[in-house]
C-alpha cells in the first residue's frame, strides 16, 4: 500500500559552491533530499523558514526557501517538476547532478 | 554623518535645515523646493548654500542656481538606482564645479564609478573603514571612458604611449 504525506522541505544553495542542499532533522544541510526533514504542520513550516533565514545570515547557504514535497513510501520528493529537476539534475543529462548518485528516492525527475 | 572626502574620513560641517527657520550662519543644506521657493532670501544670507536634489528632477532646473551653490547632494535610494550617475554628469556638464556629494546606499565597490562621473564626497557609514574606501578609490586605475577631472583614460593613454615610443628608435 502506498503511503503519502504532503508537507514542505527547506532547500537552499551552499554559498561556496552553489550545491543544492536540504535542511535535515538535525538542523544540518545535506546534499541529499533523502535526508530532508518534511514539515507537515504550518507552525513547524514557519519554524523551518526561520531556520533558513538564520542560516542565510550565517553565510553558509543562500536563497533558502520552502518547497512543497511529499513522502511516498518513506522517500521524500518535491511535488513540482521544477523542484524535482532541481533536486535531481537536468532531465536531458541524466549523467549529471544528484540523480547520478541515485538520491531523490529513486524518482525520475519527470513522472 | 561621516564623509569620505579627499581620500580620508572626516566630519560633515553642513547643517541640514529641513523646514526649520533659517539660521544666519553656517553651511546650510536645503531641499530643492525650499531653494526655489526662497531663493532670494537664501542668496542674501552670509552663508554657504547646498541643495539636496531629487533624482526625478531635471538637471537644467538647477542651471540658474549653480553659481550660488557650494554643495549638491544626490541620492542613491538603492544600490541599483543609477539615475544620480547621469545627473552628476549633467551637472558637471552644466558647469557646476562645487562639491558633489553621494548619499544613500553607497558601497565601496561603486566609489570609482561615482568619482568618474564627478562626485567628490561620499556619506559613509561605520560599516567600512577608511582603508576600505581608500582601497576602493584606487582599485581600478584604468578606465576606457574619459574621466571627470584630469586623469587620462585608456584611449588617451595608449596614444600618448605610442607617441612616446615613436620618438625612440623603432623597436618593431
Amino acid at each position, binding site marked *: 500500500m502506498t503511503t503519502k504525506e504532503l508537507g514542505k522541505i527547506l532547500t537552499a*544553495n551552499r*554559498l*561556496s*559552491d*552553489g*550545491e*543544492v542542499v536540504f535542511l535535515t532533522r538535525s538542523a544540518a544541510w545535506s546534499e541529499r533530499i533523502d535526508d530532508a526533514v518534511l514539515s507537515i504542520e504550518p507552525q513547524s513550516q514557519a519554524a523551518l523558514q526561520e531556520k533558513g533565514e538564520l542560516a*542565510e545570515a*550565517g*553565510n553558509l547557504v*543562500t*536563497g533558502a526557501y520552502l518547497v512543497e514535497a511529499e513522502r511516498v513510501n518513506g522517500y521524500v520528493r518535491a*511535488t*513540482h*517538476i*521544477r523542484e524535482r*529537476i*532541481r533536486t535531481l539534475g*537536468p*532531465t*536531458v*543529462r541524466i549523467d*549529471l547532478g544528484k540523480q547520478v548518485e541515485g538520491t531523490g528516492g529513486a524518482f525520475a525527475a519527470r513522472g | 554623518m561621516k564623509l569620505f572626502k579627499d581620500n580620508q574620513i572626516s566630519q560633515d560641517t553642513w547643517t541640514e535645515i529641513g523646514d526649520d527657520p533659517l539660521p544666519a550662519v553656517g553651511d546650510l543644506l536645503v531641499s530643492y523646493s525650499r531653494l526655489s521657493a526662497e531663493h532670494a532670501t537664501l542668496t542674501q544670507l552670509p552663508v554657504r548654500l547646498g541643495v539636496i536634489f531629487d533624482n526625478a528632477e531635471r538637471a537644467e532646473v538647477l542651471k540658474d542656481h549653480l553659481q550660488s551653490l557650494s554643495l549638491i547632494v544626490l541620492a542613491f535610494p538603492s*544600490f*541599483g*538606482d*543609477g*539615475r544620480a*550617475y*547621469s*545627473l552628476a*554628469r*549633467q551637472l*558637471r*556638464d552644466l*558647469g557646476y564645479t562645487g562639491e558633489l556629494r553621494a548619499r544613500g546606499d553607497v*558601497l565601496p*565597490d*561603486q566609489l*570609482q*564609478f*561615482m*568619482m*568618474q*562621473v564627478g562626485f567628490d564626497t561620499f556619506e559613509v557609514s561605520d560599516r567600512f573603514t577608511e582603508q576600505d574606501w581608500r582601497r576602493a578609490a584606487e*582599485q*581600478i*586605475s*584604468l*578606465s*576606457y*571612458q*574619459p*574621466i*571627470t577631472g584630469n586623469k587620462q583614460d*585608456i*584611449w588617451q*593613454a*595608449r*596614444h600618448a604611449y605610442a607617441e612616446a615610443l615613436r620618438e625612440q628608435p623603432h623597436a618593431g
Partner: protein
Amino acid sequence: MYRYDEFDQQFVDQRVTQFREQADRRLRGDLTEDEFKPLRLMNGLYLQLHAYMLRVAIPYGTLSSRQLDRLAEISEKYDRNYGHFTTRQNIQYNWIKLEETADLLADLADVEMHAIQTSGNCIRNVTTDHWAGAAADELADPRPVAELIRQWSSLHPEFSFLPRKFKIAVTGAPADRAAVKVHDIGLRMHLSESGERGWEVIAGGGQGRTPMIGVTVREFLPEKELLPYLEAIMRVYNLHGRRDNKYKARIKILVHEIGADTFRDEVEAEYARGSEIDIAVSQRELDRIAAYFAPPQFEELPNWSPRNEEHKATNKEFAKWVRSNVAPHKQDGYAIVNISLKPEGGIPGDATADQMRTVADLGRRFSFDEIRVSHHQNLVLPHVRQEDLFDVWQILSAADLATANVGLASDIIACPGLDYCALATARSIPVAQSLSRRLADVERQQDIGPLRINISGCINACGHHHVGHIGILGLDKKGEEFYQITLGGSSSEDASIGKILGPGFAGEDVPDAIETIINTYVGLRQPDETFLSTLKRIGAQPFKEALYETV
C-alpha cells in the same frame, strides 16, 4: 582579430582582482547576498537551478583558436567537460563554484577574455553578424565598431546601474544576421554617396515579455559621432526609464510610453547639449582598432575548386552538408563553414571539451585562426579554402559536428529552459530534441527550405521564440508544462513578431503540431516560396484549421 594591448590587459586583470576580493568578502560574510548579487552578476555569475552558472563574454562572437582551446580547458578544470553556446554569442558553464570563480576569470584574462557585463543591468556583450568580415554581401566589417563599443561600455561609470539590462547589436551587411531591430539599440551600417561610413541607429526593440520592433532614431549618423550619440540615448534611458517595475524597465517600454517622436526629441536634445567630456574617439583610435580586423592573407584562387566539385559529385553526404552549411565568401576561392551544434536529438548549443578542441584545431589549420559563435548557437569557420572543404567536413564528421542542417528546420534555437534555468517555467531542450529527431531527414529539410524554429522556456524569451518563423513558448499550467505556438516571427531585415496560433499543447504533442504546420506549408506553397512568404500570402487561418479543426 583584436588583440589586447597592455592597457586592455591591465584593465581586465584589475577586474579579476576586484572580483576575487568581492567573492572573498562574500564568503567571509562581509557582504550580504543582496549586496553581492549585483556585483557577481556584473561578472556574469548567476545562481541557477543546480549551481552557479558563469556566462563568459565572446565579444561580437569572435574567438581565436587559442581562446576556444582555453574555453575547452576551463570546462574540464572548473566544470563538467562541456559548455553551452548561447543566443547572444556567449558561452555558459553550468556547474561553477563561487570559490573557484576568480581563478577561472584569471584563466580567461590570460587569453584576453572576461565575463564582464554578461549579466546585470548594464550594457551587455555587444553582438554582431557571425559572418562579419567574410560575408559576400557586407559593406564593411562591423567588428571595429563593435570592439569600440565593447571598450566604451566596459565598466562605464554612468551606465552600470541602468533600469534594466541593455543589449546592442551591430551589422555591416544589408541582410540582417544580427537581429538589430529586436535589440535595445541596433546599429546598421550605411554608406553615403561619397562613400562615407555612417550608422542607422535603431532603438527600443526587444523580445522578452513585451516584444517590440525598434524604431529608427537616426537614419545616418556619421561614424565619428557614434559614441557621443549612444551616450545621449543611454542618458535619456538611465534618467527616464522606469524603475518601479522590472517588467516595464527596458528601453522599449520608455520608447513606447512616451512615443517614438518624443523619445527622439529627448535624445536629440541631450545630444545637442553636448558634454564637457568629449567621448568622440579619435580617427587614430578607430584606425588602430580597425587595423586588427584587416582581412587575413587570402591566396589568389579561382572561385571554383575541381577537388571540391569532385567530392560533391561522388559523396552525397558531403554534398548535402555543403548545400546546407557552407555559405559564399567575399573572397574568391574561399567559403564560410557553419558548424551545426544541433545534432539529431542533441542539446542545442552544447559542445563538449573535445568538440571545442576539434573546432579550435580546424580554425588553426583551415581558417586563419578564427572561429565565430552565431546567435543561432552554432559555430563558424569564417575563412576556409573551397579546396579544403572536404577535409574539414571529414574531421567535423568524426567529431559529430557535421549535421547538415544549418538554417533548416532542425537547426532549432533553444534556451536552457527548466533543465538548468531558475527562471524557466517549462523545459525547452527536450522539445528541441524530439523535434530534431522527428525532422532529422536532411533531404526533406532541404526541400522544406529555410525555417527557423525557436523555443523559449519562459516569457523572458531567451530562445527568441517571438522571432522564430515558428516560435514555441513553454509555460506552466497548474504544475504541468505546456507549449504555445506562434507563427510569422523574423529577426532579419523584415523583422516581425510572431502571432499566437491558438491554444497550447502538451510537450509530447508539440512534434505532431509542428509537423502539421510544416506539411500545411509544403502543401500550399507556390514554387520558390519560403515559409514566411507563404504565411504572408495565405495568412494563419489554413494553419489553424489544419492544427485545431482536423485533430
